[in-house]
């Protein structure tokens, strides 16, 4: 692949995840609002709701999976760095290329497949019933699939960068 194109694609992945992260961080306000609503209707009006429980789990689930991608965008997933920080750029890249190539890509690839098939089966089930609102299972599964895909994408971008560092000794 020619260089400017690769740099452009990597840049697009970064900015997509940055943008999605900024937008999805607002879910936190939604989460607070939903919980406040529940607290007020239960403790003040003595009218507990049933929809709130599922909806805030869904919002929280979305925050979590979208947070994975956002944290990866900012390279903040936890590492034990006593040795790692002392390594050269190339050696760091080597460790990351091996880890991502052997463990992350196959494993999370498998997870995305599993997640996609559960979305599909939830969707088929929903279509077969021909009625009612969208079931929560379908929504959960879809959120997880979206989050996993963004996370995967960001990891692949990092993998490409590390690979480039490994070969050329510098960032693409």
């Amino acid at each position, binding site marked *: 692949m020619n260089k400017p194109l690769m740099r452009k694609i990597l840049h697009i992945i970064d900015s997509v995840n940055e943008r999605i992260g900024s937008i999805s961080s607002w879910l936190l306000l939604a989460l607070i609002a939903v919980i406040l609503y529940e*607290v007020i209707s239960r403790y003040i009006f003595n009218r507990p709701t049933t929809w709130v429980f599922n909806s805030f789990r869904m919002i*929280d689930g979305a*925050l979590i999976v979208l947070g994975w991608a956002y*944290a990866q965008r900012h390279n903040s*997933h*936890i590492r*034990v760095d006593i040795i790692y920080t002392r390594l050269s750029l190339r050696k760091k890249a080597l460790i990351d290329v*091996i880890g991502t190539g052997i*463990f992350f890509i196959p494993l999370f690839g498998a997870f995305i497949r599993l997640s996609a098939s559960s979305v599909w089966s939830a969707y088929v089930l929903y279509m077969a019933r021909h009625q009612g609102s969208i079931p929560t299972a379908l929504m959960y599964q879809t959120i997880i699939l979206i989050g996993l895909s963004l996370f995967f994408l960001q990891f692949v971008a990092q993998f490409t960068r590390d690979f480039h560092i490994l070969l050329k000794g510098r960032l693409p």
Partner: protein
Amino acid sequence: MIEISPEILAVGFLLAIFFGVLTGYHVALVLIGVGTVFGLFAMGPKVFYLLYFRASSMILNYNMVAIPLFTFMGVMLSRSDIADRLYHALHLLLGRLRGGLALSTVILGTIIAAGLGVVQASVSMLTVVSLGSMVRRGYSKELACGAICAGGTLGILIPPSIMLVVLGMTAAVSIGRLFFGAFIPGFVLSGLYLGYIAVRSWIQPQIAPVAPVEERQVPFTRKMTLLFVSIIPPLAIMLSVLGTIFFGVATVYEAAGVGAAASILITVVYRKFSWNLLKYAMRETLRVTGFVMLITACANATVGVFVYFGGSEAIESLVLALPFGSWGAFAAIMLVTFILGMFMDWISIILIVISILIPIAPQLGFNPTWFALMICVNLQMSFMTPPLAQSIFVCQGSADPELGVTNVDIIKGVIPFILLVMVGLGLFIAFPDLILWLPGKMIG
């Protein structure tokens, strides 16, 4: 499939994790990677279903809702100027005392850092707010840095703390009970720190000078106003969050939601609210939630594999075979945790050590809540112990270079506080009720 005894598998599993994380690759992925390899070996390709199911069940666990909410509350309170304001007020109130600023630092750590779950966040917040004013007023750098490291590390123990939320999930102990189990130990440690600073600066006045007279000449009414305006509101948020849980009025996540809303309100009332602060706090929350939950989900998945091939029973029999009875086993576990704590984050330790060892606690005759909290108190010490001490690194990293704080200053400064944590550990071993009494009084 070849038959290998679960003991060998279990030890191999833990060693693989240990050496895997030492490479510096993402801890979460090392955990789940080791789980995959051992799982493929033990059960074949259906391991992917197990891992996926256990990881995604963590994402949808309703208790986890408390993590973004408490994180947000902590970021809002510490990154608005509320922390500075509180520090200033404490300084005016305690300025008459020798070591008043160091005392204020520990108090600030106790109150505000409570919501910040990560050692890095609370220590760096305290460094930014308090180190400059202590050093400029002639405090010894050792005392200043010691107070910052100790106060900031304490922040992750004192509830509401996301460490305790993760701990509760991992150890299958009620999160509310853990909050109140940690309450008295947190304040005992805080009290020990305050007592030490007061005594030390009384004996050696030159290391912690009294505030200059002109700074102290504040009328009594002004002091009382400051107390009510600056200190009571953040304290009230923390206490009301805890109080509603204690009296069984609200669940942990409901209390967290109300606390998060109150933290926005308080910045508005103090006129410190800005959209940039809110956006910053929300993005920071997303980032912290992301990395905390990736490792939590991956660890939960991998523990499933460990349990499947009989790893828990194997470790149990190995630990029970240690000499000197249950206290021998306890000492060994504490030592291992202490060493791991020097270079690993609390998240990794809790998710690996506690999830594997907590089922053994009842067999050893220990209460699981007490056992889990002893490990947390122990971690306080290991985060401050050189050569690999997270608090020390963070304090040095976030200190203003102009202040000229060196590694040696910080290390000398934290040593007395490490000894105080040991005193605390001794107290909690001798009087387990310091941990267990308050949770027993909870309603609901």
